[in-house]
């Protein structure tokens, strides 16, 4: 099989296992989902929107911002359950525990309380407090949603297993639907625990169930293969090679576990004194990637089978080939260890597996570009390595996040400086224009007009409301009347005097007729002027207020920016130091695994050399016997 396809297959397998791993966090979502899917606060829906896309960092920080602004009052408890679940997913046990404890203490609804007890139990279990976890799970009533109820049963089974009550765990698991993926894992783990504790019969029965369970996808097929491999090797250890063969035959040849199965299958045949049959799987195995321990072991197994068949020459040749291959593999492992310690593993993994956010659940999809990358498949499959690498990746995300905020804060600082400058320079100018010239003058004019209007109204002075044409007529009439007065009682102008009197009367009549409407219009206009003036004064007061308040507000922003900048500056070196430390830990985990591979190689090489020596001894003895016979 080509190395690349193996790597891809391995990564798929990892992805599969991780899908199950995400079940616990999916439970948090389930617990946080609003009843009937009805979102009553859009900002809560926004957090769910990020959550459902596995953007957990955005989800939890956005949720905390919404809680700060009190934007999720309709989902207060659900929001807390979601926040607790998300923080728990990042390993913040203490804070998550406090959130759930507070929900219980404040007397949340039975549904929320049950979820809180369930998560508290989970936190305590994860931290190794078994008795406390059992106490918490005992407080869960019957208000969990069905999916979470299954998780509760699995947790209970795990708790029972943790205190070696395997019978109790079996009883709990028997109450679950057997088709569930998560409970298949639990059943598998229980089977292994039973076998290890010496209760082989029950353990084998459980593993046999998993080994024969219908599997709909690659993940569960792999789990089934794993159960069958475990059963096969248990049978081999119990010296039941025939049974072992039956179990190992169930393993798919294309499976990642096929190498182990082929090796065990060969050993079953060997144990049944059928070395020829043993050669079939071992020879097939010998063609596969030599970074696999089973493949390495097959090299001496083949040599052993030839010896069993009496083909000592071929056996010796195979042993010597194996020793050469082990030496070559040992050198390759040394090169891999050097590359890992030089940081190539982590750099390569990050480069090939970019991710958007810090995440509880994240898959290694591709192996790094490194010489002998095949050594790493087993390293990467380990839970401890994945957890440690996840922490390393999270820390790198945090470093990038802090750097991003450092840049943003710089921009905020500039923006604040610009605002401060604008307020300091422009606002006084605008206020000066408004208050010094027009506003004061308009106020005086308004007051004068009001007084004039009041006086005109008091005197019922219709001429005060004359329009321009009427005013012009009034002036002309006054002029005519003044002229007539100078002319005295000249009869020649008597008719002119009469005309002027009639015109003055008509004008007075017209103005008197228009007076009520004009008075109303004038009052209305004066009111509008007053309102405009009040508004202008209001604007001016607001500007004055802003002039007084904004510098203080800007100052508060500046203080907050400085304080946050300080927090970033304090966190940045902490994160950087932890990255270095965690990098060392992750690398040493990988190196430790490769060192174990080296140790295994050393054992194989010793076995091979010992067998070579035995073959030489045998040949020497045969020669001696021949020689003695001839003498």
């Amino acid at each position, binding site marked *: 099989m080509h190395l690349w396809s193996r790597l891809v297959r391995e990564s798929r397998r990892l992805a599969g296992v991780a899908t199950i791993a995400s079940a616990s966090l999916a439970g948090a979502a389930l617990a946080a989902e609003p009843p009937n899917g009805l979102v009553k606060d859009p900002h809560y829906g926004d957090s769910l929107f*990020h959550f459902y896309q596995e953007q957990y960092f955005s989800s939890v920080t956005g949720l905390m911002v919404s809680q700060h602004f009190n934007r999720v009052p309709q989902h207060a408890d659900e929001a807390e359950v979601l926040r607790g679940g998300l923080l728990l997913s990042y390993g913040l046990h203490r804070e998550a525990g406090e959130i759930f404890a507070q929900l219980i203490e404040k007397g949340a609804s039975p549904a929320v309380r049950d979820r809180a007890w369930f998560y508290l139990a*989970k936190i305590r279990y994860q931290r190794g407090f078994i008795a406390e976890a059992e106490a918490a799970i005992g407080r869960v009533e019957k208000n969990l949603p069905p999916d979470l109820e299954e998780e509760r049963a699995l947790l209970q089974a795990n708790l029972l297993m943790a205190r070696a009550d395997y019978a109790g765990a079996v009883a709990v698991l028997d109450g679950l639907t057997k088709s569930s993926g998560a409970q298949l894992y639990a059943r598998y783990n229980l089977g292994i625990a039973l076998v290890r504790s010496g209760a082989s019969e029950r353990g084998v029965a459980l593993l046999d169930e998993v080994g024969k369970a219908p599997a709909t996808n690659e993940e569960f097929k792999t789990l089934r293969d794993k159960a069958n491999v475990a059963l096969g090797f248990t049978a081999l250890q119990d010296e039941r090679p025939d049974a072992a063969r039956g179990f190992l035959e169930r393993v798919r040849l294309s499976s990642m576990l096929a190498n182990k199965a082929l*090796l065990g299958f060969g050993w079953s045949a060997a144990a049944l004194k059928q070395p020829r049959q043993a050669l079939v799987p071992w020879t097939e195995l010998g063609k596969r990637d030599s970074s696999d321990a089973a493949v390495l072991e097959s090299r001496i197994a083949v040599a052993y089978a030839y010896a*069993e068949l009496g083909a000592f020459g071929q056996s010796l040749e195979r042993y010597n080939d194996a020793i050469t291959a082990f030496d070559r593999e040992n050198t390759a492992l040394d090169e891999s260890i050097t590359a890992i310690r030089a940081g190539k593993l982590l750099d390569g993994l990050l480069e090939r597996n970019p991710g958007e956010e810090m995440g509880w659940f994240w898959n290694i999809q591709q192996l790094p570009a490194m010489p002998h990358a095949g050594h790493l498949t087993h390293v990467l499959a380990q839970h401890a390595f994945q957890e440690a690498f996840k922490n390393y990746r*999270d820390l790198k995300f945090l470093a990038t996040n802090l750097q991003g*905020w450092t840049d943003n804060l710089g921009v905020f600082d500039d923006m604040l400086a610009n605002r401060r400058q604008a307020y300091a320079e422009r606002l006084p100018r605008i206020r000066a224009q408004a208050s010094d010239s027009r506003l004061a003058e308009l106020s005086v004019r308004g007051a004068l007009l009001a007084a004039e209007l009041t006086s005109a109204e008091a005197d019922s002075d219709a001429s005060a409301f004359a329009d321009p044409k009427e005013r012009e007529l009034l002036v002309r009439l006054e002029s005519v009347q003044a002229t007539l007065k100078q002319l005295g009682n000249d009869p020649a102008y008597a008719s002119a005097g009469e005309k002027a009197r009639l015109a003055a009367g008509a004008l007075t009549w017209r103005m008197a007729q228009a007076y009520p409407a004009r008075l109303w219009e004038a009052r209305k206009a004066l009111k509008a002027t007053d309102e405009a003036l009040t508004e202008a004064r209001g604007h001016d007061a607001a500007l004055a207020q802003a002039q007084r308040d904004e510098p203080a507000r800007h100052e508060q922003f500046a203080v907050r920016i400085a304080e946050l900048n300080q927090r970033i500056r304090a966190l940045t070196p902490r994160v950087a130091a932890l990255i270095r430390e965690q990098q060392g830990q992750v690398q040493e985990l990988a190196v430790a695994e490769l060192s174990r591979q080296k140790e295994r190689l050393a054992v194989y090489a010793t076995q091979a050399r010992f067998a070579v020596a035995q073959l030489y001894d045998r040949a020497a003895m045969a020669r001696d016997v021949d020689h003695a016979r001839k003498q």
Partner: protein
Amino acid sequence: MFNRFCKVLPLFVLVGGVALQPLAWGAEAAPAAAPAGLDGRIQDVKGDVIRLNRDLMVLEEELLFPANTQVALFVSMDVGKLFELDSVQIKLDDKVVTNHLYTPLEVQALHRGGVQRVHLGNLKTGEHQIVAFFTGKGPHERDYKRGATVKFEKGTEPKYIELRIKDSTGKLQPEFDVKVWQ
């Protein structure tokens, strides 16, 4: 012969022993010891950075989108079986403020009840108008483009407006409406 068999056969335990390990089922594979040392410090720093991000985002919002001018636009989907959402364009007072092309993951998140905050901005007090265009596939896989319009009054409080995609089972057509939250 038997002697040699005994020496070689136990080798399988080296490989087979690995087969008898319990499987990791998330963080629940086995009870872990209380986080101490490096792991504990990493959890502490994660908590500190999460809280710092909250405080920074609060500052950012108060600085850039003060409550008295803030307007937030959301998109949600109720059932949504009659419409496969591709994209949305939103105009606020005749100015395009958002053009969003949806990924399958985003559409799935909307289907599950998530609500997307598609725009956050500032508006003066007074009357404003939103026009939203949704494009996608309607019933019978037909290309579908529909609009929804709303006029609203912006006061001195933040304004939250939700653009909703619904299924009209009576008409067997998707419906688009707008809910002004406050």
